[in-house]
């Protein structure tokens, strides 16, 4: 029975991982992806090499151990030996591992040096981490947009069945050309995030106030998904990355479409008034609820009660029941942990959200809060307050 247990342990710990990690099983589920860039492939090979070295050392050490556990038991009637040291063997099993490490360090050094060489890039993409979305800017093209998770709330709340790319899908992926050296400049607008796409072999921490570089040359077209890899607050798990790598022709076409300014594809550098639409109060309220639920509710809660004192309640707050200008100001420009939404949302969205807040949860009760409570905020009001 005991031998069975020892054998099972041995099997589970050694043989199974060996089987699993062999290339036949190099499936997404168990092992790192090989990826589609030279660096990701280098990394994969380094990873497998150090893994096998560990397996070999492990087998060597554990077989001696298991042999002893079975053969050197008192119950077998053995008498214990008395040896207690051997300088030669001590030195041997210090030097040999040291040499193995030197052998490992050399290719690792070379790959690291290659990873750091971002020179002679064909295009430059600035990646900015926000709480809780990514912003991509094509520095040479003048295109900039936010990329937010697009998994429906119903799936998050288990009210609808989860689809294949649950938590790994966004509204606007980062579109990139293959076969070009792309330089990424990574930073953050608020806290530390980390931009990680395993198939590209890139992970860079996004640190506020600093910019870090990475590069990739994508060899194959396809969709590559990643996640934020540094705890950044409540929705750290909900800011995925999707890279849409296209052939050079397809990329050029996409670029042309973007530049032609197709409305539904981008928010321009300076949000403008949508002069064509005239919003009614009801429309603003309804749209505002959507904007609020998708952007404000994660800190201020869907019922407006917030998480004081870090995230004040909007229900019954001085700002949401007081002068409208002060409320527009704080939403546009932010304060401490509250982002400056002026950079992320356009005037329609901000006007709608504020209208929603001023008329929800009893905030428009003029008897309680005075004549200034409630009211409708139009996109023009918001535009007027942008500096």
């Amino acid at each position: 029975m005991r031998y069975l247990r020892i054998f099972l342990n041995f099997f589970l710990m050694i043989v199974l991982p060996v089987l699993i990690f062999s290339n036949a099983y190099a499936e997404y589920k168990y092992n790192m992806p090989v990826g589609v860039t030279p660096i990701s492939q280098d990394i994969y090979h380094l990873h497998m090499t150090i893994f096998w070295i560990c397996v070999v050392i492990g087998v060597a050490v554990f077989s001696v151990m298991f042999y002893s556990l079975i053969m050197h038991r008192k119950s077998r009637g053995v008498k214990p030996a008395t040896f207690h040291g051997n300088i030669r063997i001590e030195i041997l099993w210090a030097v040999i591992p040291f040499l193995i490490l030197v052998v490992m360090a050399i290719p690792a050094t070379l790959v690291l040096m290659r990873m750091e060489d971002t020179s002679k890039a064909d295009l430059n993409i600035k990646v900015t981490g926000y709480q809780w979305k990514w912003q991509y800017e094509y520095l040479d093209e003048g295109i900039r947009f936010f990329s937010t998770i697009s998994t429906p709330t119903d799936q998050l709340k288990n009210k609808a069945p989860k689809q294949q790319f649950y938590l790994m899908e966004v509204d606007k992926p980062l579109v990139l050309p293959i076969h070009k050296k792309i330089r990424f400049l990574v930073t953050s607008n608020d806290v530390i995030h980390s931009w990680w796409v395993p198939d590209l072999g890139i992970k860079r921490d996004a640190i506020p106030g600093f910019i870090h570089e990475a590069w990739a040359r994508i060899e194959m077209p396809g969709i590559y998904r990643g996640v934020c890899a540094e705890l950044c607050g409540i929705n750290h798990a909900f800011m995925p990355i999707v890279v849409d790598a296209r052939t050079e022709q397809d990329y050029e076409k996409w670029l042309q479409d973007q530049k032609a300014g197709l409305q539904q594809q981008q928010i321009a550098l300076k949000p403008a008034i949508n002069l064509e639409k005239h919003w009614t109060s009801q429309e603003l309220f309804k749209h505002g609820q959507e904007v609020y639920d998708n952007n404000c509710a994660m800190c201020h809660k869907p019922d407006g009660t917030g998480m004081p004192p870090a995230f004040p309640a909007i229900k019954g707050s001085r700002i949401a029941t007081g002068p409208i200008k002060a409320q527009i100001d704080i939403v546009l420009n932010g304060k401490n942990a509250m982002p400056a939404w002026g950079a992320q949302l356009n005037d329609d969205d901000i006007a709608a959200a504020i209208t929603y807040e001023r008329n929800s949860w009893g905030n428009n009760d003029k008897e309680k809060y005075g004549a200034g409570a409630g009211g409708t905020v139009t996109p023009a009001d918001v535009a007027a307050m942008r500096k």
Partner: protein
Amino acid sequence: MNETIDLTHHSAGTHHLPQQRGWWPYVRRWVFTTNHKDIGTLYLWLSCIMFFVAGGMAMLIRAELFQPGHRLLEPDFFNQMTTLHGLIMVFGVVMPAFVGLANWQIPMMIGAPDMALPRLNNWSFWILPFAFLLLTSTLFLPGPAPNFGWTFYVPLSTLYGPPSTDFMIFSIHMMGISSILGAINIIATIINMRAPGMNYMKMPVFVWGWFITAFLLLGIMPVLAGAVTMMLTDRHFGTSFFNAAGGGDPLLFQHVFWFFGHPEVYVLILPAFGVMSEVIPTFSRKPLFGYSFMVYAIIIIAFLSYIVWVHHMFTTGVPLAAQLVFMYTTMLIAVPTGIKIFNWVATIYKGALTFETPMLFAIAFLFLFTLGGFSGLMLAIVPADYQYQDTYFVVAHFHYVLVPGSIFAIMTGVYYWLPKWTGRMYSEALGKWHFWLSVIFLNVTFFPMHFLGLAGMPRRVPDYALQFADFNRISSIGAFVFGAAQLLFLINIIWTIKKGKPATSQVWEGAHGLEWRLPSPAPYHSWGEPPSVEIVEEEKNIKNPELEH
């Protein structure tokens, strides 16, 4: 010379336990005690309580992660659970437990009547319950408890941190003071109070382990205090240590924190190495292989631990030269650690083994800590680390070195020395059930995490993509059974105290060391007269036979 010590006459043992009745004398004893055995007991019970508190948090975490989707916990509360689970396990479970073992064992092992500074010893302990009260109170005050991970990176913990962060900062200050005072005490005791004849290279390796750990603590705790104080001033007094807009740098925090943090994890494991070096020779009935190398390895590991900290920061944009240097030093630390593993295996080899519960835990340590060491070596390879960092691969690594590493070593020590402390044998049947359930289900919990990390699951997330669902479910089931199994440990300890079979002085056939010369239970005041030089020589020769030549 008579082989056995005549204990009734020598004050090698006197019972002076207060015998008064009533609750007030009881409370007074435990609040004001300066006795190293009582204080050791206090540390161990605190650690046990904190183990179940932080363990409960782990159960909540794994319950949320049992399936994808938002299930039981709000994401913010989930972040509070991961943060407090880490803080309490590191500062409230592993560290106090090892200090408890140190308090109980060091004086008895070196032939000293008590620690060098008994009153300081009392204060070192009593700071802790208040520190943890302060920390856990944040769960019951308005606003979130600390929710930024046990590593509390800025600016998430400064500009964006909740008010409870300040409670955490003061709690850490208190724990730090406790550790510093305890470390001073241990160093003073070991240097000054060894019995005549007990030279440094004759000390049990457990004592060496703690001697070096104490120096590590002295070096790092003030650094942690500095880090959290800078956080405090950034939050409230207008400084910009960590704020780029004011000329500071968020990475400064990481450097200061990890300069503390890396040696800290060696604080969590060196005493464990010490325990192993006591237990494995006992149940192999063979001296420890390579005593000197074992001691030197501990010293080298401690020194190297100060020069590897950037390996927690490889993806933060530190310069290439820094990444290379720290890759080399991090890989280097595998060498002395490997020596220790090889020496323990060589101790077992050609011994005459029996498998009582302490030995079972020790063997599991040897096997599974080494697995944790392998994943650590993989993490040291910087380019590969870019794919591992902040994923479940790291979570797997540190849980392998902490759970079958530190926690198992603590349990090994408790099972091993409990008969000496209480005079009663624990239940071997309960011990074996505890062991097998723990070792099997910790592997079910943590082994799949290697795969999850490699497949792309990040850390500190309450929800995950569908391809991670299967292994998360397996891991959660493992966690629930593992957690439940720890109750067997608690039950065994209580049962032992109340109903255990009386233990002999020797307890274990192969045990050697001054503590086994004392009766079981060890007298309240032991070694009032130091052991004779002959006895020390005898023990020395058995523990470090190299000196005979």
